[in-house]
């Protein structure tokens, strides 16, 4: 497993390379913390509030990606859902994100984490951008080991 500095450096690099406004990684905590899912690393963040949130499987961006194992693309946050429902996506509000892409990170055939990248302008996250993020996750951060599953 990689250490803290490793993840942090990787997402910093990813952010400057792809010009994202914000990049974050959510990981499952170890047994002593009841295996909860939390945002552990962030680059380009406005504050650290998003790290406080305990993510629930199936809820929110990380929860959806974690549960389904599929990437999530929101080209425009305001068109994504009833705007009053945004309180269920705290990270979007906290970081003032307007378009978002998120992909799962695999480990031992299970989703072990979520990689999220976002822009503070609408329509900047596109299908092509998501593909790039997907590949970045596959090559670097996401290559925890279950590469075969990534392609299936």
């Amino acid at each position: 497993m990689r250490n803290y500095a490793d993840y942090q450096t990787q997402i910093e690099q990813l952010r400057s390379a792809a010009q994202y406004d914000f990049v974050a990684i959510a990981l499952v905590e170890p047994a002593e913390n009841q295996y909860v899912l939390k945002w552990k690393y962030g680059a380009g963040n406005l504050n650290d509030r998003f790290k406080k949130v305990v993510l629930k499987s199936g809820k929110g961006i990380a929860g959806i990606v974690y549960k389904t194992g599929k990437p999530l693309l929101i080209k425009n946050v305001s068109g994504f859902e009833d705007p009053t429902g945004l309180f269920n996506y705290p990270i979007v509000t906290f970081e003032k994100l307007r378009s978002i892409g998120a992909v799962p990170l695999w480990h031992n055939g299970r989703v072990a984490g979520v990689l999220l990248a976002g822009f503070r302008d609408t329509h900047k996250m596109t299908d092509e951008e998501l593909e790039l993020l997907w590949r970045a996750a596959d090559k670097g951060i996401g290559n925890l080991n279950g590469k075969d599953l990534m392609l299936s």
Partner: protein
Amino acid sequence: MSANNDLKIDLMTKLFENSTEAIFFFDRDGKSISMNPAAEKIVDPAVRKQLREGADDAICKACRGYTSSTDLQTCLDCYLNSTKPTEFASFQVYLDTEGKGVIPYAATFHTIDPEQGIRVFMLRDLTPQFETQKKLHQNLMMKHVIEAQESERKRISRELHDSVAQELLSAVIELRALKYITASQEILNKTDETKMTLTRLLDDIRNLSVELRPAALDDFGLEAAFRSHFKRTEESFGITIEFKSDIEKRRYSNEIETVFYRVCQEAVLNAIKYAGVEEVNVYLFERDNAVQLIVRDEGEGFMMGMEPLGTGLGLYGMKERAELVDGHVGIFSQPTKGTTVHLRVPMGK
């Protein structure tokens, strides 16, 4: 004697002129011979004219039938020419009135001059009484619905906590025992993964159970239930809730505690949804022989009476719940100045 008689006539005239009860007089044939101002006021001008002129069946133009044991509105065996006049000492009748439509009246119809066959028809508007009854009935129903909802939630919550979660926990423990049985690292790695999934599932079930109805509310009271609720809210939404309480672990009736918990839950969720704030203040205290709760945010606020962003049922629900325990919810808000929700429930009846 004559003075007494004069007084009687004077009083009767005043009663006729000023009574709020509508009074009609009919002769033997059902022709109207007189009516008081209150009666004139309720009938349609056209009908009023006919009644004044003593036209045949003029009252039928306004009357929409009386309530019998079989029908709500019927003309069968009409009171005007009934064979059993004693049955019409007190009954309910529907009249088409000017401006108010068809409304129910409590009526009495009896003969006051047997020789000339003069009968009096007196009416009292029943709508306010009906409305009071309807409200009473609604309140009662609402109370039952909320009670049923809470007890059902309690049942499911207990079931989840006591049986489903317990079974799951034993499964996790059994998985832990596996490491004493096999030395295969492969199997152990796999069971570790399973353990992880099960542990998270256990957590989800516990959360579900608490969300349905916190056992802490029944077992430890408002402060404990609030603290654990706020902790979970902070974890889910990343906001800070400043909670202050002066009630010193005092307990109240189950009904009151439920109202406080639900109103607070709704008010805090509203602040998270609509106020766009990072911090919400909650203050629970006793003053003026009443338990009081203030939920305050310094967020966006709204114009009172504005079209609601959500369903608008939340605020209504809070008020409904508060009324069930004779409480009152005050909501104060101004755009950009934040919102305050104040719940006040008197203690002891």
